[in-house]
């Protein structure tokens, strides 16, 4: 089975976020970055499938040169080769453009299965995989919990479909799956894996080389401004050291909110 895993590099969950001077995105200098959480589970799911049915796993990342750190991490975990679409322009692009870029980057490769995380930690559109499937005429499922190969080029997939409902379906390959977090135990890269990562094939292509049409590269959305939300609730912040704050809180829960 020929598997592609799409990963995105995003700010680390604990990274200190500051709004850039331009006001329309975050300050990226010195920002700690990581592979987006759901994407890590997608990589693990891809590696497990490969181990079960034989085949190869390629990892694909769209992003600037700094993305190679995440590409290498995926290779060290066990992916066989990498495709890195190098561009600084698309860090906060809309899912339509990104899905067009992915479609173009993989159209001649003939992957049986494309795995992505169900949504990225930064933009969180929850849409790129579904749109990719639409462009390539592939079947698709979102919020995937498990995937098992069955006969005749088909896979059995279970995924979340509304509150506490799990749907089990069979899809014909090729297919795109959006993977939910927490579905497996993500492996750490072994020392051997890290050593081997550098010698694995890494194809770098620029956005220009992909030769997308102007229409495909025209965003359907623009982020005009980002900001920390204006506090709308009446949240009362309790100040003081740990002991004083704890005492004040217990007092308020007892006398003001009357919930203790």
């Amino acid at each position: 089975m020929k598997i592609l895993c799409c990963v995105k590099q995003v700010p680390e969950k604990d990274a200190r976020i500051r709004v850039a001077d331009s006001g329309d995105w975050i300050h990226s200098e010195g920002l700690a970055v990581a592979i987006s959480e759901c994407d890590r589970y997608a990589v693990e799911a891809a590696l497990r499938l490969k181990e079960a049915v034989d085949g190869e796993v390629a990892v694909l990342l769209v992003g600037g040169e700094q993305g190679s750190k995440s590409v290498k991490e995926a290779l060290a975990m066990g992916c066989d080769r990498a495709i890195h679409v190098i561009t600084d322009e698309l860090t906060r692009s809309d899912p339509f453009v990104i899905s067009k870029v992915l479609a173009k980057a993989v159209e001649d490769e003939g992957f049986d299965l494309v795995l992505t995380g169900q949504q990225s930690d930064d933009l969180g559109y929850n849409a790129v995989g579904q749109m990719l499937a639409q462009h390539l005429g592939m079947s698709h499922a979102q919020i995937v919990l498990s995937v098992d190969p069955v006969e005749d080029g088909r896979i059995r997939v279970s995924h979340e479909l509304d509150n506490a409902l799990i749907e089990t379906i069979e899809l014909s390959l090729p297919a795109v799956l959006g993977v939910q977090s927490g579905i497996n135990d993500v492996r750490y890269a072994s020392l051997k894996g890290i050593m081997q990562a550098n010698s694995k094939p890494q194809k770098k292509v620029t956005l220009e080389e992909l030769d997308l049409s102007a229409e495909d590269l025209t965003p359907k959305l623009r982020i005009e401004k980002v900001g920390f939300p204006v506090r709308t609730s009446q949240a009362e912040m309790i100040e003081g050291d740990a002991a004083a704050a704890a005492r004040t809180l217990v007092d308020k829960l007892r006398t003001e909110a009357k919930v203790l």
Partner: protein
Amino acid sequence: MNNKILVVAEVRDGALKGISKEAMVFAAAASNSLSAEVVSVALGADLSQVAPALAACGGRRSLQVEDPGLDPYTPEAYVEALSQVISKEDPAMVVIGHSYQAMDFFPRLAAAHGGALVPDVTAMDADGAFTRKVINGKLDARTVPAEGVRIFVSLQQGAFPVTEFSGEAQVESCSVDLSGVTPRKVIEIAPAEVGEVDLAAAEKIVSGGRGVGDKDKFQIVFDLAEAMGAAVGASRPPCDAEWVEHQRQIGSSGQVVAPKLYVALGISGAIQHLVGMRGSQCIVAINKDPNAAIFQEATYGIVGDLHEVVPELIAALNEAKE
């Protein structure tokens, strides 16, 4: 394109979903600022119960698309059926609630029409710009669709609470041709495993998130719960990491709770968690990140290291008992 808002209503077990009523609330407000006409559409094999319920949510017309190929749900049939409705109605905006089922097919529908997908929206300004969360819910992003492009909006659950509806839509039946559709094989739709931990009944809940640290440190959540006489819950990350049982998960893929007191320890406030607990009467948040989204929902907040604050809290509770 017509100056029309098409609301896609979803059906579960023969009934109209609550999130679809919220979409009708949004559409009514948007139709005022855009002077647009609201048309709703429901899809299914038998809409006899849904049709009157949806018509009662207002709008000018309510389209009923009944076809055996629309039950059970498949994205193939939904995308095809809605594409035919969109071609007929030519609406400037298509609206749906941001349900899991919507996440499954709505982006495909938007891509099929080359539209602007604006998912998980929390507000719309009078000038047509949308607000949605980015960077794990930490920031609000003012997001503007391109000119002249059909807009596909999905609405965050709970962002547009249901109010009284005025007026009743005229019900029309609408036929579609699904002969070209090859749907996937649906094997089973089953409720997720419901464990023995029933948090819905608890009056007080102490919940831990990723910020608690690790499995051993999670004990502090149990300790505070014991001192408060509360049940123990969690956001998704501790369940994923198996610090606690999955049955304790609160949020969109776990349990939805509304206790008198909800204490969130080291929970950043991802929307998937918030939708599961924001109905709580009194919410306490303890987090070291002053910008954590959970503080937006909290009644009382403490910015600090929970591992310093909680032991003091337990001491203060025990002191008060004596």
